[in-house]
C-alpha cells in the first residue's frame, strides 16, 4: 500500500551529487529532487562557483561532503583547512556535513586520494582525536564515510565496521554508509558485504551513498575500482535495499564523477533509488 506520506518522505530523502557541468541546467529547470551534495573543497574560494551554489541553496537542502580534511592523518588535521570548512558551513548552513575514514596528508603533502588506514588501536586514537577536533570546530556532528579499499594492512586488528562503530562510540559522530564502497571493499579484500552492513551501528547512519564502479583484471584476478563512472550495479541496489531495511529512510545520494553523463541520467538513477525505497515501504506495509 503506497501512501502519500511515504512518497513525500522518500522524495525528500533522495539527492544527487552536484557537479559543475549540471549547475546551469539545475538552476534553470529546478528538477524535483530532495537535496544536493557538493564537495566542500570546490567552494572554498569565491567567485561564480560560490554564487551558483548560493542560487541552488535557496531552493534545495545541501550536504557538504569533504574530501580533503584527512581525518586519518597521524600529523593532525590542518587547522587552516578546517577553518575554511567552517566558513563554508556557516555560509551554506548544510543539513549534513561528511568526511571519510581515510587519510591524504603526510609530510605536509596533500595526496588527493582517500588512502587506506591500518585499523589498530593507535589509528583509532588518532582518527577519534581528529574527528573530535573537527566536530568541536564545526560545532556539529560529522558523518564519517566508509572508504573503498584496494589493500589491507597486515597489522590491522579491527574489522572496518567495528572500527567505525568504535569511532561512533568515542566521538558521537554519525556514519555515512556508502553501499558501493562496501561492495567494492568486500570484493577487493575478501569479505561478505551483507555481514559488513549488518555490523554497522544502525542508529548512527545519517546518510547513504550510491555510485557505480569499474572492474579491472590484475594478475588474473578482478579488482573493483570505485570510479563513480557507471550506473549503480545490481548487487549494490540489493545492498541498498538491505541498508534501508536496517537503517530506515535516511538521506540517500547518487554520485557520478568519471564520464559524467547528462543530468537526466542522474535523475533516472535517483528515481531508481526512490523505487527501491518505495518497494520496501510497500512490503513493510503489507507485512504490517
Amino acid at each position: 500500500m503506497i501512501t502519500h506520506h511515504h512518497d513525500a518522505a522518500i522524495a525528500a530523502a533522495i539527492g544527487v551529487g552536484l557537479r559543475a557541468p549540471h549547475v546551469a541546467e539545475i538552476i534553470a529547470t529546478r528538477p524535483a529532487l530532495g537535496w544536493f551534495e557538493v564537495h566542500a573543497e570546490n567552494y572554498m574560494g569565491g567567485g561564480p562557483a560560490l554564487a551558483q551554489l548560493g542560487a541552488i541553496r535557496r531552493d534545495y537542502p545541501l550536504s557538504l561532503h569533504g574530501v580533503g580534511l584527512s581525518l586519518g592523518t597521524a600529523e593532525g588535521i590542518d587547522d587552516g583547512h578546517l577553518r575554511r570548512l567552517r566558513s563554508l558551513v556557516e555560509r551554506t548552513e548544510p543539513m549534513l556535513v561528511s568526511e571519510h575514514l581515510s587519510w591524504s596528508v603526510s609530510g605536509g603533502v596533500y595526496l588527493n586520494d582517500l588512502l587506506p588506514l591500518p585499523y589498530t588501536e593507535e589509528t583509532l586514537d588518532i582518527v577519534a582525536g581528529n574527528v573530535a577536533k573537527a566536530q568541536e570546530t564545526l560545532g556539529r556532528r560529522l558523518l564519517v564515510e566508509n572508504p573503498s579499499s584496494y589493500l589491507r594492512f597486515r597489522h590491522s586488528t579491527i574489522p572496518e565496521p567495528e572500527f567505525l562503530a568504535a569511532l561512533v562510540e568515542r566521538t558521537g559522530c554519525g556514519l555515512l554508509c556508502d553501499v558501493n564502497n562496501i561492495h567494492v571493499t568486500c570484493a577487493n579484500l575478501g569479505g561478505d558485504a551483507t555481514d559488513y552492513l549488518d555490523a554497522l551501528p544502525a542508529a548512527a547512519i545519517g546518510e547513504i551513498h550510491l555510485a557505480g564502479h569499474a572492474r579491472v583484471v590484475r594478475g588474473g584476478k578482478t579488482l573493483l575500482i570505485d570510479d563513480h563512472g557507471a550506473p549503480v550495479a545490481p548487487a549494490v541496489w540489493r545492498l541498498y535495499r538491505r541498508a534501508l531495511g536496517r537503517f530506515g529512510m535516511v538521506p540517500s545520494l547518487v554520485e557520478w564523477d568519471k564520464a559524467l553523463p547528462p543530468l537526466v541520467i542522474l535523475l533516472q538513477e535517483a528515481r531508481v533509488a526512490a523505487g527501491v525505497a518505495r518497494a520496501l515501504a510497500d512490503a513493510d506495509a503489507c507485512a504490517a
Partner: protein
Amino acid sequence: MLALREVQAAFRRGLLDGDDNALAALVAADGIAATERMAVYRNNVQTSLTDALRDTFPAVCRIVDERFFAYAAHAFLTGYPPRRACLAEYGAGFADFLAAFPPCRELVYLPDVARFEWLMNRAAHAADAEALAPSSLAGVAAADAPRLVFRLDPAYGFLASPWPVDRIWRLNRPGAQGDETVDLASGGVHIEVGRCGPDVVFRALDAATFAFRQAIAGGATLDAATATAFAADARFDLGAAVADLFRDGAVVAFTLAPEAVP
C-alpha cells in the same frame, strides 16, 4: 609494527617516488600482488592531479599535446606535490617548473602562457570583494594622498611578457578553431587579468598604466606607484589613473602608510 606516521610516510614515498618496497611488506597480498594494489592508489593520485593541472592550464596542454602534458605534469607533481586540499590552488609553481624543464626549452613562450592561465585561474576563484566608491576618499587630506595604499580586488593579476601571450592563448584556448598563426616576433604585451561579475576578463595595458596598477596591487604607496609609472612613460596621467581604478571597481580598501620620519 610501524607507527601510523611511518606507514603514511612510506605510502607517500611509494605514491610519489614509485618506491613500493617499504610499503609492500606491510600489505596483505590476498591473491593480488601488493604492488598491483598500491598501483591503484598511485594511478588515482597521478591521474587526478594531472587532470587538475590540465583544468588549470588547458592552453599549455593544447600547445604541447596531451602526452607531453601528462609527462610534464608527472614530473611536476612528483617534485612539487600539492600542499593544500583545494586543487584549484594547485599549480602556482608550474610556470617556473616549465621554464626550467629541459624537454620544452625551445618553447620559450610556454612559461608565460602558463603564468597567464594561472592568473586567470586565480581570478576565477578569488574571494568576492566589495568595491569602494571614490567618495570613500573624501576624508583623506590632499597632503596625505601620496601615502595612500590601495588594496585591489584579489581577482586582479598582472603579467608582462616579451611574447604576444594573449594572442597565443586565444589560438589555443579550449574550443579554439582554425589554423591562424601568431608571429612570435610581433612583440610583447602587458596584460591585466580581472573579473567582471562571474566572468574572468583580461586586457592589454600601456606600459605606464601597467606599471602603476601592478605596483598598487603589490602594496606600493600611491607615491611609489606613481614614480614607477612615470619611469615607464613621462606622459602618465595620475588623476585619470586613480579615477580609472575606482571606475573599474578595483579598489576594495585603503590605508595610509606611516609618514616618513624627517
